[in-house]
């Protein structure tokens, strides 16, 4: 037993900085692999299969099969009790589908803007807490709270906040003499998407902040102290010591946020359903509409959208990984 519990003790409960893996757990594998083989190692194939089978069954049933089936469906017209092979017809139609491309533009804009906003604000907040500003304990809880709420609750809350007549945003604008700026924030095509991006940022900044704060707290003290001994000021310490050390964590958060926004559905569905004028349509809401709201039972075309979008998301994540030069370091 000691040989199984010892590696866990090393990593357990620890969020990491740039030196260690950004997400907990994976380091265990490396340490486990490097550890000397325990006595009695060399389990039989049957034992290995017995241990793998439950997890593999769940994986195949709920991940692999649906993914393969979606790809299969994308080449078919899928109606109740019958399927019809249509080859690349769905893909050809998708290329001509201006609503799909509008949804793609919105989603990509969201996925690019949100991570930058979230992580940069989160970094500032984490640094403020790291510097132990007055009330840090309270702010840590207050800033983290939004992420504990579901998108449904957040959506309803912000529909109220953005209400034209009595929503706090417009009330505040009117109170300070900026009534001309008051508007139906979610009802205007020009402001609906930026408003929703703001909402997701509000929601996720706290999460990013906590992860970054953990990274800051686990910075090697000797490095910080060495910088201080060299008369390094706060700014220089931040730019030349702290940021490079938490770089991997920042990049991880950016990629995770990017992936999350590429799949966003709930918030849009609760607040705008993709409107007005498709200004907040995302690929996920469009898939849902095509599958359940377009007076058709065909699941082929929505599957085509899902398949194409999967490829786009995968390509984008690989591109980001490559761009960040972290192929060896990033772990999802």
């Amino acid at each position, binding site marked *: 037993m000691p040989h199984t519990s010892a590696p866990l003790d090393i990593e357990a409960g620890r969020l990491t900085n740039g030196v260690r893996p950004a997400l907990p757990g994976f380091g265990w594998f490396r340490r486990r692999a490097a550890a000397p083989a325990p006595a009695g190692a060399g389990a039989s194939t049957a034992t290995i299969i017995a241990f793998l089978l439950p997890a593999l069954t769940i994986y195949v049933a709920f991940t692999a099969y649906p993914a393969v089936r979606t790809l299969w469906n994308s080449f078919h017209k899928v109606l*109740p009790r019958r399927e019809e092979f249509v080859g690349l017809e769905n893909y050809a139609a998708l290329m001509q589908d201006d609503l799909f491309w509008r949804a793609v533009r919105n989603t990509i804009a969201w996925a690019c803007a949100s991570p930058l906003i979230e992580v940069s604000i989160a970094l500032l907040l984490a640094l403020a807490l790291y510097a132990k500003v007055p009330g840090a304990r309270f702010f840590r809880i207050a800033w983290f709270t939004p992420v504990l709420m579901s998108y449904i609750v957040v959506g309803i809350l912000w*529909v109220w906040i953005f209400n*034209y*007549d009595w929503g706090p945003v417009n009330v505040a604008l009117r109170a300070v003499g900026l009534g001309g700026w008051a508007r139906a924030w979610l*009802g*205007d095509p020009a402001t609906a998407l930026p408003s929703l991006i703001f909402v997701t940022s509000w929601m996720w900044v706290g999460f990013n902040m906590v992860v970054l704060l953990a990274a800051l707290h686990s910075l090697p003290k000797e490095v910080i102290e060495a910088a201080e001994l060299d008369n390094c000021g706060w700014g220089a310490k931040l730019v030349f010591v702290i940021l490079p050390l938490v770089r991997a964590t920042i990049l991880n958060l950016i990629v995770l946020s990017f992936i999350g926004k590429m799949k966003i559905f709930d918030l849009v569905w609760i607040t705008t359903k993709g409107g007005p004028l498709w200004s907040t349509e995302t690929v996920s809401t469009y898939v849902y509409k095509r599958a359940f*709201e*377009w*007076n058709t*039972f065909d699941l082929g075309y929505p599957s085509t959208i899902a398949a194409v979008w999967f490829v786009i998301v995968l390509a984008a994540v690989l591109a980001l990984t490559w761009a960040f030069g972290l192929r060896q370091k990033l772990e999802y």
Partner: protein
Amino acid sequence: MKRLIAALAAVMLGMVSQAAAQTKEITLWTHWAAEQIKRDYVETAIKEYEAKNPNIKIKATWYEKNALYAALKTSLRAGEAPDVFYAEPDQVEYMENGLLLDLSDLNWANIEPWAKQAWSYKGKPYGFPLEVWTVEAFYNTKLLADLGVTLPANQQLGPDAFLDVVKKAKGKGITPMAIGAGDRPFPGSHLTHEAVLKRLGLDEYDKLLKGQIKWSDPRVVETLKWVKGLTEAGLLPATFTSLKLGEAHTYFHTNPGAVMFLNGSWYTSRAFNAPDKGGQPVGFPLGIMKYPAVPGAVCNECKTLTVGGSYVANAATKNPKEVVAFLNALATPEMGNRWLEQVLVQTGIKSDASKITGPNAAYFQMLAKVNEGAKYSFGIPSQRLQAKPKEVFTQIINNAFPAGTISVEDAVKQLDAAY
């Protein structure tokens, strides 16, 4: 003794299993979870039917419409759908895929022919048209009187007089017309489609929806510009795009209050609940006027009549005879009259509104008055359009155009491109 007990037990077991075998359960999934009046009507009908048919048990499950539709899409595909469920005639996909039971055996003599027609597909009827509704302009009689406006005898304001009402209401800080398009694909469109219908008349309007006439037709463009003028004058609440249907009701009759409310005649199913359940205040001065006359209209008496909430049967039901028998129990003139009296919305069942008595008789007379001489176009556009034209119509005519976020030219261009 043991033998006697065993024999008795066997007999009792046999009786129980025989009773269980004889009792059939019909499952019903239906909208109107939040519309208590309609729910009461259906629940009473079920109880009465079960009392007359002790071997039948009807298990009703209540949903809100969107949740019901999503549940049906998956359950029908999986062969797990209920025996009877709520549907509306625009859901042609059910019939296209052979998922509905042919209801030719229903007692159609008790159903209005046009209502049967709305549910006919390839010559066969598939839905029992319980609810029928018209697009009506409800108004607060006191607020209108306070504005110094008196309706003409035919209850229809002219285009200029209507614009005058809008301006007077705005001048007093009152929202002229409460409509919200926040959670439904149709309420915002009533303003425009009723105007276009009146301008074009029944046949030409039908062609427009079928794509045989373009939205860039000068008559349509003129009408859109007239509607645009109304919205620019401040006809609708500033919260129009996010205001939900239920909230729009409250906006009209309770807080903050609006002069008019353009809505389906099923207004009653929400507004005639108790005030603490979202109903209008006791003694609310409710009136109904006709939609205003439209400039250049060829048919100011034209209006939309829609077959709404209906019941259909699952083609895969194991109890087709019992299902039809249950629907036939609803399809009687008595049940039609009860629907009118209780729900105060029109029905596809042949019924006689003149027989309505009681506290709501005056309401129904008012409704009948604004429908005198009306020529009906059947089905709102969001029911008649399918796929992309429907999506574009919803985004533009239900939402962006009345909200003032798209020009007439852009609206016409996008609508024409959708066909």
